[in-house]
């Protein structure tokens, strides 16, 4: 469903953040992206929905080339791609419900934004999504009144409102403690297993990769270092990915 071909990104005046990266994501997969900080994981995820413009290569989404899509086409592509962020990226002064509903904007007529109006079915769905992540009673609270774990659940609910075919999760648990991290990962796993939503998730901790991912790709300095099952990452592979001084933790 998603094919990355020879993708590269060079920031102006910076080094190559992505260097000729190619891989394929299959329908229903839980694919982890691993690598050190600054290895290009976030850039890779953001290139897929063109939050960052790639400087070379192609992204083929269901047979369509995203890299040269027009604004209208990009809108229809983006609304099928949910995204979850490390720092949740909620609008802190808006209510939880509004944050979740904003996941629906790709499907809503822009003119309706002036009236701040969503359809009744959207609002019902938003409540359902909040219920699914277990914070139904928080719907009318301000987003910044929630704890970190709760905020990330709002982020997941927002992504799910898009009725996505794939969710890009950019270090979804990196700013949460280990217990919360597992709870968020389990939510993603549930979405993956029960609803068949493909997950492309960048992760720091290898034990999380082993526990949740079907497949892993590894980046180092923007280059693909590994593509295969997490079980195949032995000590040698590990050093190749993280550098020879690295030590395994956790």
């Amino acid at each position, binding site marked *: 469903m998603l094919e990355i071909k020879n993708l590269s990104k060079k920031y102006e005046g910076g080094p190559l953040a992505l260097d000729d990266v190619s891989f394929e994501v299959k329908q229903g997969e839980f694919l982890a992206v691993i690598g050190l900080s600054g290895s290009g994981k976030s850039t890779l995820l953001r290139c897929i*929905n063109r*939050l960052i413009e790639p400087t070379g290569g192609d992204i083929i989404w269901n047979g369509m080339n995203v890299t*040269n899509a*027009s*604004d*209208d086409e*990009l*809108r*229809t*592509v*983006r*609304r099928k*791609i*949910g*995204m979850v*962020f490390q*720092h*949740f*990226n*909620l*609008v*802190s*002064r*808006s209510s939880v419900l*509004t944050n979740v509903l*904003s*996941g*629906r*904007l*790709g*499907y*809503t*007529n*822009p*003119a*309706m*934004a*002036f009236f*701040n*109006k*969503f*359809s009744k079915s*959207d609002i019902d769905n938003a409540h359902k999504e909040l219920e699914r992540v277990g914070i139904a009673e928080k719907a009318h609270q301000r987003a910044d009144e929630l704890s970190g774990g709760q905020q990330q659940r709002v*982020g997941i609910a*927002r992504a799910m*409102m*898009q009725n996505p075919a794939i969710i890009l999760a950019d270090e979804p648990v990196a700013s949460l403690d280990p217990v919360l991290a597992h709870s968020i990962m389990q939510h993603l796993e549930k979405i993956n297993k029960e609803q068949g939503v493909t997950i492309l998730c960048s992760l720091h901790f290898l034990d999380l990769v082993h526990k949740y991912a079907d497949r892993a790709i590894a980046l180092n300095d923007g280059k693909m270092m590994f593509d295969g099952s997490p079980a195949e990452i032995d000590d040698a592979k590990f050093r190749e990915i993280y550098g020879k001084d690295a030590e395994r933790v956790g």
Partner: protein
Amino acid sequence: MENNNNNNKSLKKSISKGILVVLGLIIFAYAFQVTAVDFGTTRDEVRMTSLTRVLRALAHPDLVEYETAELDVDIPFYLPCPDGETPSLPDNASSEPYITASAICGAAGETVTVEGYNFPAYVQGPLNFITASGVKKQLEKFQADENGYFIYEVEVPNRQPVAEAQAIRATVRTNIGAPMWSDNAIATWDKIIETIFIALLATTIGTLIAIPTSFIAARNLMVENTSPLTSVAFSIIGWLIGMWIGSQITKWLLVLFTPINESLLFSLVGAILSFGLLYAVLRWSITADDSEAPSLGKRIASITGTALSGIAFLILFGISFRAIGAALIEPLGALGFLPNFMFQVGEIIVMLTPGIIAIFFGAFVGSMLSKIGQRISDNMPAAQVKLVNIVAASLAGAAIFAIFGAGVEWFYQIGNPVKTFYIPGAVGGSLGLLLALTTTAKKAMPTGLIIYTITRTILNGTRSVEPLVMAIIAVIWVGIGPFAGSLALALHTVAALAKLYSEQVESISAGPIEAVQATGANQIQTIIYAVVPQIIPPYISFTMYRWDINVRMSTIIGFVGGGGIGFLLSQNINLLDYRAASAQMLAIAVVVASMDYISSVIREKFV
């Protein structure tokens, strides 16, 4: 060695410090010279007296007045002493106020001691010499003590000697009845209210224009807007063509609607009908669910329908509002300001309609051509795109410079089309050509940054002109009065607030914007859902602050004829009526202080 080096360093440091101190002293010495500092004048006797007089007047604001009664207490005085018997003092046993003198006659220049009894305690008043013909000459200003007694030595004035008695008179003014607001207080009240409303109007209009402007002037929102040269050039040409079409249509519509202009009923019915049509078209074309892109036919139909019914509604609504307002001003009497408001709103709409129509058509044709340009750039081979670019960019450049030329012609009245049309056109055309030749065919141009820079430049230019100067121009345009002041302040408010607002937009966190964009939201949705919630508190805070400034500014703007309390204040200062001016200063202080308090309360509520 190390030590030596350190010593050297510290020596250098102290020398450079010393030089800095000397330099600073020289600068301040020169500043004294330039600003003509002269503390000698501050102790000058004459100036001290004037200062005291003014300060005392300022301490007595002219706010209340009383009805007064005057009581004259006389003793006869002969100048010179009559021949023969010296007249005796009148009998002074009464409990009424009376005065006595050490002598009842005398020659000019002699000293006479005058005593007063039974006056009201602490009363003040003039002690006059009254000639036979009734002319006053003030001898002294008396003040009674707690027992109503005073004593003064006065000099007999040099007046024409006459035989009959002249008089020394003490005049006592007493206030009777309750205090009343003085005329000055009433005028001050009227004008301070005017001042507050000038500030309110200027802030409201300024804020409404500044908010959308601030988004264009925010770098973080604009930097991502890029489009290829083909699209940009097509868009410019489209805007110009569209605005020309719009202005032609407006001309035609104004002729068409002239008969309606006379009939109120007709225009009212027309306004209601066109509103209904507009509503229906909007309901039909805007569906909440946007998951399927509408067909081309529906798009064209909805845009045409919205445009036609919208334009008709605007014009008819404006005309009927204006007519209703005008008809109701007389019959409503004291409430006439309400229909006058209707009339003015109608007037504004009628006035703005041609502009709105022109901009609408400009935006429509511009965006259509821009899309066509985008398509060309996306789908055609680079060589052909380059060819299209050369033609389109030359045309667009020529058109822009021709418009500049027209502006130059308007300002300088050169009257030579070669200089103001052909040469600018040729220069613009060749610049466009140059741009098209030097850029890669499909390269994205930073259109957002260009618009940002232009907006910023205009805002900075406008902001650097003081509102006082703007008010002078506004006074020439719309005449002396509060309207001129409101216009000037509103313009300055737009420039100042748009800058402050846009800096707030630039400092918001990018995360939520990224998240909302990722959902497929377009630019308007992103602004409303990710930007607006983040900027509401600072916007309210800045608006209140600006209102505060505008109240203060509107007290000054009257100095140049911009209405408000400044007009009264400058008048009274010029008339040297410091007591009256003091009342106005007091009013300004009270209003500014309470504004400060109110704005801080509101800010606390929202932020």
